[in-house]
């Protein structure tokens, strides 16, 4: 099952490096045979996560507990913010930011955002562990949750990256102004979801280190014909739209959210859980085909000598 054990790591003569590809060059490639279709992956993810009492029960318990805690800390609402607690970063970064600034104010809240991110990273790690287990075995157990904790460092790093992505997008959007702001923010969300979505799955199933997980996630996302960018866009754009949609349940200041608000928040979190299951399936199905990071060749003697000669020519004479 482990893609790492199955991958070849020949230390002999290195094969010729594959031709360099552009960022989006894989979009025109023929679909990968081994990659489950988006619809199939989503159906699998939905059936696996939604049918598990442990996944659904954990999700409900987490939402109720988190709400009680943030209310006790002085957060007055809106409750709808919790709709994206279970989303991968940077979609869940807005929840991190809004909760921390909603409790401590804009000035102090921005510092506290990493505390909120750590708590959400813990929950996300548990959820991704459960989602992977439903994909692998058809059901979830508490061992899946424990196994998911392996992803905590990676998920926490992704939350930090998410904050950076959101701020960078806002700065660029502010410079562009108007309609460009929406496009930039949406593009940032889709892009970050696309390249980092597999990282937690890799951390759980392959026990790789942080940078390795991030790099492998990027390489997996960019595999030609995988349709990962389309999937990320189909997921992230409607979620981003909910940030801007007025009149959703639970958007008022109210610490006793009405039933429709609970329905909305639970459904959105279940949707995120289903998407996590889909991401897990899509990665596990192609794990053995993901190329390893290219090994940096040691500089040859000739190249090193040439480099020294160039440096000596450039250095000023005393």
């Amino acid at each position: 099952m482990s893609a790492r054990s199955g991958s070849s790591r020949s230390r002999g003569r290195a094969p010729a490096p594959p031709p360099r590809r552009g960022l989006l060059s894989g979009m025109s490639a023929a679909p990968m045979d081994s990659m489950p279709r988006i619809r199939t992956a989503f159906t699998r993810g939905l059936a696996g996560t939604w049918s598990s009492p442990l996944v659904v029960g954990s999700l409900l318990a987490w939402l109720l507990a988190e709400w009680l805690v943030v209310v006790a800390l002085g957060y007055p609402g809106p409750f709808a913010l919790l709709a994206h607690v279970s989303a991968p970063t940077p979609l869940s970064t807005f929840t991190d930011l809004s909760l921390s600034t909603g409790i401590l104010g804009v000035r102090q809240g921005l510092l506290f955002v990493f505390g909120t991110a750590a708590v959400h990273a813990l929950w996300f790690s548990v959820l991704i562990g459960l989602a992977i287990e439903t994909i692998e075995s058809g059901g979830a157990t508490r061992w899946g949750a424990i196994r998911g904790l392996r992803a905590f460092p990676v998920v926490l790093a992704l939350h930090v990256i998410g904050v950076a992505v959101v701020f960078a997008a806002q700065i660029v959007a502010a410079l562009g102004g108007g309609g460009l702001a929406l496009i930039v923010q949406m593009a940032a969300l889709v892009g970050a979801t696309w390249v980092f979505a597999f990282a937690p799955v890799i951390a759980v199933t392959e026990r790789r280190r942080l940078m390795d997980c991030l790099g492998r996630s990027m390489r997996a996302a960019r595999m030609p014909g995988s349709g990962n960018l389309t999937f990320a866009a189909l997921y992230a754009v409607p979620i981003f739209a909910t940030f801007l949609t007025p009149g959703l349940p639970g958007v008022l200041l109210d610490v006793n959210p009405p039933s429709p608000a609970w329905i909305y928040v639970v459904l959105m979190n279940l949707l995120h859980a289903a998407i996590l299951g889909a991401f897990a399936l899509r990665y596990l199905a192609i794990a053995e085909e993901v190329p390893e990071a290219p090994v940096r060749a040691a500089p040859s003697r000739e190249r090193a000598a040439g480099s020294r000669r160039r440096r000596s020519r450039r250095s000023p004479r005393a």
Partner: protein
Amino acid sequence: MRLLHLSRVSHRSLAAVSVTVAIVVGAPVAALADWVQFQGGGAHDGLSDGPSAPLAVAWTNDDIKLEGTDTTSGLSSPVVSEDGTVVVVAPTAVLGFDGADGSQVFSADRDFGPSSQPAIGQAPDGPIAVFTEGFGDSGPSASGSVTPSPSPPGQDNAGEGFDSHVSAVDLETGQPAWPSPVQLADIVQTPVAVDETSAYIGDVGGRVTVIDLASGDVRWTKELGTPISGAVTLDAGRLLATTLGGQEGPSEIVALDAESGDELWRASAEDASNLVSAPVVANGRMLTLDALGGVLAFDAEDGRFLWRSEVINPIAPRGQPFLLQGVGAPAPVSADGQVFAVDVTGRVYAFEAETGAALWDHALNDPSQFSPPLLTDDHVLVPTDSGTLYAVDRRSGHLVWRVDGEGTFLRGLSDAGDLLVGVTGFDNAALVTFEADATARLIDEPSPTTLDIGRLIARFLLGGALTGLVAILLTRPLQRRLGPAILPGSGEESG
């Protein structure tokens, strides 16, 4: 002028004696209409002795036709003279209405300009309404930049030719009260303030202009550097003006001598953001609001900083609970050891006046962007954008009444004696009045921001838990049929 002053004092004294005698003998007395400027008096404390909840609509006048090419600014907040005449500024006119039935009693032309709240002062021939007019040289989109070369104090022709003036009309005749309008150097978006002798105007260029009510002559002007955020406040011979601040200067409250215009002191707080409201003086404290949610108190005597409490509202636009909204002026109110503020989302806050400690808050969840609240003996009255007028109990913070104002964007609540008068709408402007409703009974609703664990759990079970259960029941058969997605050990999709 001296005679006029005495006659006003004696008039007020007579009124006060009448009220006292009436209270002593236990006879019912009608409240006096006396809301001649922003938030009632020169201190802008927003205290009303008029009716309080339960309230009902007394009359409305939606037969007000606004003229001009741009009527989107609607009517200004009203002011009320002692005889009950209600005066509002429309985009191209100053309008007077009978406080008893809302019928129009006069109309005077006005240069097109922001609908800033006028003020009613006493001139030798009777009460006059002082108002600002003109949109500068660049029309309604004028940014109101700081005047680059301010005229020396005392000169009354600063910026001659610039379309911004102060004018006055006689309330009885509707005719101009001064020989000519007073020229200003910049446009005005804040209410006019008055005392017994003068009118006080702060413009977006940061200049305070003081005009003699009797003659319309400029007594003095003073350049403060950055735009004036709210109405000029009058307290104990001092004039207090809030400056918005900017690159050229900090945001602070500047105290000037009301007679000479000499600067007395400047008050500011280190952790404050831009001050966005008029300084409100109550019980020796000077209160104001800053854009990042700060409610600030200074000593009204010497400007010494006392406290700053910050409100946090996650749904405030751009994280700013208090906003400078053009002519829609926010302001705190205070009485009996409490300070109250309402943010743009319609959340009401109460603080201890001595320390600034938070007492309670009530989320109305109905934005209140264009008007400060009004304070009665028992309630904080909050006009809102939906047109609903809310009454919140001053002690408990519970909602005790709500009444529909029969229009949207209710604002500028003013005490007209036995009535409260406000305006609604912008293009479709209307006047609305409220009266005490003796037949109704108050309600008692805690803020939705107060945790009710029983209700929370019930709603969770009914909404969240039920949704989860349905999700499980609907997908279990599907999952049984599909089985595991990955065939163990193969990495192949199974179905």
